């Protein structure tokens, strides 16, 4: 038996505790009451694991540069993370996730550059992890660029999916060649492998529209986890294996839940073009849009017993959530019951709108999701739709030719009165005509979300 290595024991024990803290932390993040504590626990695990790694027996030099790298990377991320507006959260998550994927790929690159003798399973996982990490890296950067508005529109060309598949297959073949050749692969081949994987990540993300991006970010998040888990195996590091695979599996489920909430199967998101001609013409809309002004809306709400507010991303863009909350408090003082109804895809991703409302100070227990609130619309006096569009479009229920047919929606049209706050008369994000706007019980209140909310607050005060 070998001598007992105390240092190694302490390191392994620390990794064990860190892995446990990650799992317990994630578990606690699953409930609003304990969520805050959860992230702190996971954070403690991360700090412990990082510090103890300085004593890892495989690290024998580069301590100073390592610390500098942590300092630079950490400082940039800290400042950007503190500064980012809540509305920009999805792309920020994409960016940090891309960094993780890139790190996993870079670890694989260092290992593969050494061309050390290693068992084939290890080499295989190093290569597969490299591929997944690289795709997550470049794909996440594209997702970031798109949501940040650095890259506009979607790029599509004929045979695109064929080209994507071709690049994928070639990269995979080269990867296989590297695995099978042991230590005998050329550096050029390795470089080509990484370049193709980078290209594939870009190519697969570029044709995806902004609305589907959250699902893609979530998918890349899961992929990064997987890559981290695989590289953890290569480095014989159980903490990385466990954390990576837990995230890989949790992320996959989260991706599915998001895709389901949006009524967009993942395969559709990745391989089909939203709104492409399939089937007949969408139903023509009957009726006309009827305008109303803020004073009348204020009166209507002031005497309502039950008001449901349906916020969409437009509200957040206009930074109107604070004013909306002020208005809500006024209505509550007048004795009205006010509830917020959140569609799973309100905001840029499921749960994003809850974050934005929480930022404005709206307590989470007056916020309801689709299943909880849909039965209540027939007994609601006034529904205020602000900055939302497709998620209240009854065409999703009634018109089989509509591109959004089958998507679960908030049944705002069942309410007694519907007020839609909207900037202009256009069709909005997806370009689909909204039947709700033409309904008899709907009135349109045109204007910027912030201004409208302001007018409503003022009018309510004057009543």
């Amino acid at each position, binding site marked *: 038996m070998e001598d007992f290595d105390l240092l190694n024991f302490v390191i392994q024990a620390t990794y064990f505790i860190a892995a446990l803290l990650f799992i317990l932390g*994630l*578990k606690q*993040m*699953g*409930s*609003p009451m304990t969520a*805050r504590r959860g992230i702190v626990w*996971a*954070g403690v695990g*991360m700090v412990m694991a990082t510090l103890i*790694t300085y004593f890892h027996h495989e*690290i024998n030099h*580069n301590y100073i*540069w*390592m610390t500098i*790298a*942590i*300092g630079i*990377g950490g400082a940039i991320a800290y400042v950007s*993370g*503190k500064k980012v507006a*809540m509305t920009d*959260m*999805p792309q*920020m*998550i994409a*960016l*940090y996730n891309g*960094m*993780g994927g*890139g*790190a996993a790929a*870079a*670890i694989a690159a*260092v290992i593969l550059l*050494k061309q050390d003798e290693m068992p084939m399973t290890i080499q295989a996982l190093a290569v597969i992890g490299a591929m997944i990490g690289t795709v997550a890296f470049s794909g996440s950067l594209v997702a970031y660029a798109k949501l940040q508005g650095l890259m506009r529109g979607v790029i599509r060309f004929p045979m695109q999916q064929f080209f994507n598949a071709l690049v994928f297959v070639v990269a995979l073949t080269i990867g296989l060649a590297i695995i099978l050749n042991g230590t005998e692969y050329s550096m050029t081949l390795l470089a080509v492998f990484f370049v193709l994987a980078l290209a594939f990540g870009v190519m697969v993300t570029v044709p995806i529209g902004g609305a589907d991006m959250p699902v893609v970010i979530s998918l890349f998040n899961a992929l*990064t*986890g997987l890559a981290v888990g695989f590289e953890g195996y290569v*480095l014989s590091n*159980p903490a*990385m*294996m466990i*954390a*990576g695979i*837990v*995230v890989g599996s*949790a*992320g996959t*489920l*989260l991706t599915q839940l998001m895709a389901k909430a949006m009524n967009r199967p993942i395969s559709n998101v990745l391989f089909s073009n939203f709104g492409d001609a399939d089937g007949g013409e969408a139903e023509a809309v009957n009726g006309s849009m009827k305008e109303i002004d803020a004073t009348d809306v204020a009166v209507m709400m002031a005497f309502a017993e039950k008001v449901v507010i349906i916020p969409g991303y437009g509200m957040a863009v206009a930074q109107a959530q604070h004013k909306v909350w002020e208005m809500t408090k006024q209505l509550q003082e007048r004795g009205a019951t006010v509830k917020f109804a959140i569609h799973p895809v309100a*905001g840029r*991703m499921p*749960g*994003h709108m*809850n*974050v934005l409302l929480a930022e404005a100070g709206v*307590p*989470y*227990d007056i916020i309801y*999701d689709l299943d909880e609130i849909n039965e209540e619309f027939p007994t609601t006096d006034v529904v205020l739709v602000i900055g939302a569009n497709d998620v209240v479009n009854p065409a999703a229920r009634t018109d089989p030719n509509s591109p959004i047919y089958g998507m679960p929606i908030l049944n705002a049209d069942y309410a007694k009165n519907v007020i839609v706050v909207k900037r202009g008369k256009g069709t909005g994000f997806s370009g689909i005509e909204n039947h709700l706007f033409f309904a008899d019980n709907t009135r349109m209140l045109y204007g910027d979300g912030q201004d409208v909310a302001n007018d409503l607050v003022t009018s309510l005060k004057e009543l």
Partner: protein
Amino acid sequence: MEGFIALYIFMLAAVTGYEIISKVPVILHTPLMSGSNFVHGIVLVGAMVAMGHAESTAQTVIGFIAVLLAAGNAVGGYVVTERMLEMFKPSEKKEGDK
């Protein structure tokens, strides 16, 4: 590490991840995605090991990039997740009300 033990670790970790997420309300999806994004920041540990036994300049440079990116993942992931989660508050005004 012995292959089958690794396979067991992967399997149990996958089941754990699935179980953790399966009963989470939609309102926490965004913070949870962000939180899990933070957790794979553990890649930092691997990046440090890779850089710590780099042999050539090229390996050291790539190792440096790996550590830098991984630190960004971990720190950024933590900061944004904590910012989001600390905002979630119930209606009743509890202690620590601003």
